[in-house]
């Protein structure tokens, strides 16, 4: 171990920035962070300047806000019944969509995952195909399905199936690829067939992960399902849209509250299920 004088002499000759302040940070990490924040700030300022916002309309709107808010705080329970059944429809649409998607995506995901696919090219084809499907936002799918099938829950369910399936396949395939290898090896080595690998090997191991993903997606679908109604596919969204259109703010408040409570309760329920199923 060196003593003070030796250290001082070495320091003065080796410090690259004598006269300036000594640096203390890890260079690469610091550079990375500065780059990220620098570019983001630049983009932000540019966007701020180039976005056109009609401030007159905004000011007019802000003037109306107090009146709207006071109307909204007078909750009326008049529409409680229809709102409740609307919410129920919304939930049901999401549920059916998720279940159908689950059945389809369960099998598709084994096709797509690179450690379980019988044919590499088929897997890749589906992977990219589903990627394109996934980049179309859900409301657009529903718009298309309403245009082709007319209004109503069926359009909503079918519209939801496409984005839900593509999401589930991506998530399931990722889980299969990440955690499936050991199990596949094990069952293969004792001579199991494809069916055995999937149903006796992978399914039990990946079960909790699959359920977890399903739960997450179901919550998301309920969100989307509420929105669907705004586009015409049944459920509570349709009612809410009409309240907005006809300025029935008191009913709207009740509707928003019902949506909030339902979704939150659902989240708690799914969390509870998730905890119970993994504790086993």
């Amino acid at each position: 171990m060196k003593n003070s004088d030796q250290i001082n002499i070495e320091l003065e000759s080796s410090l690259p920035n004598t006269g300036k302040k000594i640096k203390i940070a890890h260079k690469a990490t610091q550079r990375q962070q500065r780059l990220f924040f620098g570019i983001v700030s630049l983009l932000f300022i540019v966007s701020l300047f180039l976005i056109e916002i009609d401030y007159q309309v905004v000011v007019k709107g802000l003037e109306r806000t107090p009146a709207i808010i006071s109307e909204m705080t007078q909750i009326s329970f008049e529409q409680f019944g229809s709102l409740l059944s609307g919410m129920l429809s919304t939930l049901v649409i999401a549920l059916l969509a998720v279940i159908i998607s689950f059945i389809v995506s369960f099998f598709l995901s084994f096709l797509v995952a690179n450690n379980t696919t019988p044919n590499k090219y088929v897997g890749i084809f589906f992977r990219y195909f589903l990627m394109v499907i996934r980049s179309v936002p859900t409301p657009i799918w529903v718009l298309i399905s309403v245009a082709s099938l007319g209004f109503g829950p069926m359009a909503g369910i079918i519209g939801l199936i496409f984005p839900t399936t593509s999401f589930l396949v991506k998530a399931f395939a990722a889980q299969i690829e990440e955690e499936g290898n050991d199990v596949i090896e094990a069952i293969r080595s004792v001579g199991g067939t494809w069916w055995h690998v999937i149903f006796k090997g992978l399914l039990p191991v990946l079960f909790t992960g699959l359920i977890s993903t399903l739960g997450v997606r179901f919550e998301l679908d309920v969100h989307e399902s509420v929105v669907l109604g705004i586009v015409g596919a049944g459920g509570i969204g349709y009612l809410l849209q009409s309240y907005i259109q006809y300025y029935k703010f008191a009913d709207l408040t009740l509707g928003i509250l019902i949506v909030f409570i339902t979704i939150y309760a659902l989240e708690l329920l799914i969390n509870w299920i998730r905890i119970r199923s993994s504790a086993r």
Partner: protein
Amino acid sequence: MMLGGQKMKMLLNIQNLVKQYSDGTKALNDINLQIKEGEFIVIIGPSGAGKSSLLRSINRLIEPTGGTINFSGQSVEKANKKELRFIRSHIGMIFQNYNLIPQLSVLENVLHGRLGYMGSINGIFNRYSEEDKIKAIEWLTKLGLENEIYKRADELSGGQKQRVGVCRALMQEPKLILADEPIASLDPKSSTAVMDAIYHNCKQMGIACLVNLHQVEIAKTYATRIIGIKKGRVVFDGTSEELTDSMIYNIYEGKEEQMYQQTI
């Protein structure tokens, strides 16, 4: 530093220290301890005996439920936020898991030792003085880490990380260093390097030291005074010569295998 013959000042005075948890377990059961400036003391005992709780009560990382702790004339258990910050800046701590910030550089980790002395705003904006930075680099060089200064803390080996932890504690220019199982996760060679670093620098700077160890042999090598803790009580307080084998067995009663383990 005063040597032999003259009375050394009392630094830490612990009276009737009790720590009881809500389920009734008593981690510390009436501890009485006095420590003078510059003493190097090793605390031995099986895991769960209360060694860790004792150390963490001294700088109030754990809240005592009863008793008094007096550090350098100040009451620890009655200190308000500001006073506690002052006390803590004068007590350095070395942890079993090193407790470094992995993404920051080694130098930044060591400089954290000065935060207790800096105002909140200065500390937040990294406004360390150039003297502090030079001192930090000196410490790191003294402990053999001069090539690691600008590396990320998570790039270091266990022994190196712990030496960084030692530097951080020394940067505080403390009156007391608390080391909680500093070598429990290290191999024998790194353990020696770390124990030497702590021992020599504390002796040189007159820093009192309380080290928790469960390896009795290492305790005997470094300490002049050994304290044995069993089930929350002090059952031995004397020199390493006075620590007979039967005393050791008494302290580790029921957990004898821990005396020799290199790691727990």
